[in-house]
């Protein structure tokens, strides 16, 4: 095709959207039956390049609509409206074990979407595309305020939605990798929930005193939310992923201070020493370190460390004590935690205790451990700094990319509906305003 006279048009709507919003990619005015590759390129904060691509054939009027037409090959296939984002992977030659995580949520992810001639699979950087546009993907809606919290020796960030409030609140906990990870909290604030991202493994106080936080640390975080003038004190929930699930269940079942309206547990377990401190909990996991398995690719599988699920009640949270609705999300291919087995045991315990009406379990076949907000790349394995050994090791998280991405999309939508139903009152289930997701 003569580039000088190329009239091919590429349109992506919206050009600035939230990370969990769908976009429409339209190629128009290509020659009829033209073979082309739609390509996505993202340079992350660490400087690594990620790419995804799909092969398409234009119809008789020269149009390709990624939401309706099948990709015939590439990093994803079939009709996949968001495939160019969830199938992003490090470009050839990148170092192994990368995981894409946005640490600065105040600026967007920039993705360059381009159209190349023909069905190509490599060498994109050495060619000039026929057309390209830049798309911004934001973890923060306009008007969301980001407030660092350091009082009471907490390491946390509060995200407040725009508007007068008051808003429901949420404590947001990540897992064993530590750090203050803000992106899920900022996204939830963009959906109207005042969210507090809390660092509980590597907060300033632990770095200075070399001591892990105690359980009062979490209760202090809860109090900060409860007493905030723009937060509705009796409408606070908690969300934890991986190790964050352990804390969430502990607080929901045993805390006298926290009156949680609802809880969400992703990829975690209720197995832990019941009266244990943070140190006790971590030690318990490492007791069975010899049960670590290693895959053929030298990736560490840690799911067996907590198996079998004990029958000894000293080593699992008493699920019968839960008084609030609980959403449990698990990937059946989780290679890091025995989330499925734990979910089954939690269900049994609650059935026996008579509070299983509070429980909803979402179990996704072929999904792995890292069930994150939708349309972000899936990492089947990545380098992980274990809290126990302090070494960087290649952890196997599990999951098959297409199934895992579908799980992320479905789980997120259901999570938002769950939070909205339980943290707000008088809402209609299946609120249409989520339909753009």
């Amino acid at each position, binding site marked *: 095709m003569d580039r000088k006279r190329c009239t091919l048009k590429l349109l992506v709507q919206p050009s600035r959207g939230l990370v969990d919003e769908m976009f429409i990619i339209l190629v128009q005015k290509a020659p009829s039956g033209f073979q082309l590759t739609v390509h996505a390129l993202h340079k992350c904060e660490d400087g690594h390049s990620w790419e995804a691509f799909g092969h398409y054939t234009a119809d008789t009027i020269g149009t390709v609509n990624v939401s309706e037409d099948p990709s015939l090959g590439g990093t994803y296939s079939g009709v996949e409206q968001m495939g160019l984002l969830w199938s992003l992977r490090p470009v050839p030659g990148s170092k192994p074990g990368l995981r894409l995580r946005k640490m600065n949520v105040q600026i967007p992810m920039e993705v360059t979407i381009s159209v190349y001639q023909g069905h190509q699979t490599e060498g994109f950087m050495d060619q000039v595309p026929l057309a390209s546009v830049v798309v911004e993907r934001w973890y923060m809606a306009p*008007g969301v305020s980001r407030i660092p919290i350091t009082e009471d020796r907490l390491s946390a960030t509060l995200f407040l939605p725009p508007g007068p409030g008051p808003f429901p609140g949420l404590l947001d906990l990540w897992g064993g990798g530590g750090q203050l990870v803000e992106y899920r909290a900022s996204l939830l604030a963009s959906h109207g929930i005042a969210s507090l991202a809390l660092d509980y493994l590597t907060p300033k106080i632990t770095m200075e005193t070399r001591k892990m936080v105690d359980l009062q640390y979490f209760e202090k975080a809860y109090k900060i939310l409860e007493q905030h003038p723009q937060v509705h004190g009796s409408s606070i929930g908690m969300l934890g992923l991986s190790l964050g699930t352990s804390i969430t269940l502990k607080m929901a079942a045993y805390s006298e201070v926290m009156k949680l309206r609802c809880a969400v547990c992703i990829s975690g377990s209720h197995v832990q020493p019941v009266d244990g401190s943070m140190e006790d909990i971590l030690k318990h996991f490492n007791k069975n370190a010899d049960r670590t398995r290693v895959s053929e690719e030298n990736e560490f599988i840690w799911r067996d460390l907590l198996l079998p699920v004990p029958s000894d009640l000293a080593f699992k949270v008493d699920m019968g004590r839960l008084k609030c609705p609980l959403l449990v999300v698990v990937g059946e291919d989780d290679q890091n935690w025995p989330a499925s087995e734990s979910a089954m045991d939690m269900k049994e315990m609650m059935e026996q205790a008579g509070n299983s009406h509070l429980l909803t379990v979402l179990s996704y076949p072929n999904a792995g451990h890292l069930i994150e907000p939708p349309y972000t790349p899936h990492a089947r394995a990545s380098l992980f700094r274990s809290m126990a050994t302090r070494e960087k090791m290649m952890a196997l998280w599990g999951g098959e990319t297409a199934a895992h991405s579908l799980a992320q999309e479905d789980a997120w939508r259901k999570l938002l509906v769950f939070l909205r139903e339980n943290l707000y009152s008088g809402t209609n289930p299946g609120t249409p305003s989520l339909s753009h997701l």
Partner: protein
Amino acid sequence: MLGLRRLAVAASVHRPVRRLSTMSPPTSPILSVQPTRGLVDEKLKVVVESLPPGSPVTLHSLHHSEDEDYWEAFGHYVSDFRGMVSVSEDLSFGGTYTGKEDMGLLWSMRPVPGSRKGLRLRKMNVCSPMLHNISVYSGHVSEGFREQTPLTSVLVERWYMAPGVKRIDIMEKGVRGTLFIPPGPGPFPGLLDMWGGGGGLIEYRSALLASHGYVSLAMDYFNSQELESADLEFKYFETAFNIIKEHPQVIPDRVGMFGLSLGSLVTMHVAAESTIVKPRCCICVSGSHFYPRDRTIKEVIMEPRSNSHRLRIDENNHHVWRDMWIHLLDDPSKKVDVGKINCPILLVNGKDDQNVPADECAEDIALLMNAAGNGHLLSRVLYPDTGHLIEPPYSPHFRASNFKAAGVATKTVMLLWGGQTKPHSDAQEDAWRKILSFLQHNLYSSTPPRAKL
């Protein structure tokens, strides 16, 4: 993002600290605005849910301008029996707009009560978005919005620049301006973008055009001290045109010209007289074709003073310039020789233009071009009850505003532009669509250009 913080602080300062001691969760309605970050010419979808059924509410939009003025618009609605209001589907019963108006919250904005007079809303820094606070108030409120707490609100960004558009300062061969380049390898068609007699470097329309795939040069053509003669001035426009044409990312035979008001005049003049510059197509918004030969634009702006007996001042003390040049219609030496234009040209005018006799000029241009045999190149649209300032859609309408002629030692006057807000806003929306399709047809299409849309 100072404005953003300012709005957030305003919200918490005005609100009394409220600790709800009830056990039930909040019942605030849910406001959703899509997109929260969009281009200024994109439509907004505003939906409120979880309202009590059949209850009156006010939808309000607030903007704090770069000049530190506040602009607002509002509509009075009644929720349906699902507790919902959808601005694109429901009627507004009152406010700054009525009826089914999906974009009323933007185009009907006006300065809040107590503001300075004669304001005009124009974005000067296109690298940052316009911020609008969209809120829901209980009941049908018409004033005192700042003293009340809304039920809920969201912040919306409206951008003149799509992501990836590059902005480049131009200081080349005596030409001063800003070049906007769309993302992607190109090459792209180009546009020379010229504003009116207010002068200055107005970038927003060029930024928006680049967001639609055109390399666009916004020119600053009034403050230059070098343009002391008509001849030099003419060369300035030719040079500017060639800067675009010679840019490595521009298709050289696909460069057009886009002018408003005085910029239209320059466009027609260059298209007719230049032996060097051959625009592929021209768009002339709200322009006259009165170009006194051998005189500079500066002199043209000075014209009102010497023709002051033809100047009208209306009952509101607004200066009306439209009649000042009508007498020139009879003098061919005072008009652009439009018979020499040999590219498609689109004239966009408002019938209620009080600044320029756009209607009469368009008629005259058509007559002249038909007589010269190039009438097939001309397309015209004339909008009823529409004034002089036909801008990109959804921007507020001003029937009159403060005006200071550029580069000339005149005092600021209140100029009457004309137009009634609702028809003028409809015209802006329709005109922009026609302009974009005209440009697409003449600058992107691979078939030879034809004048008719």
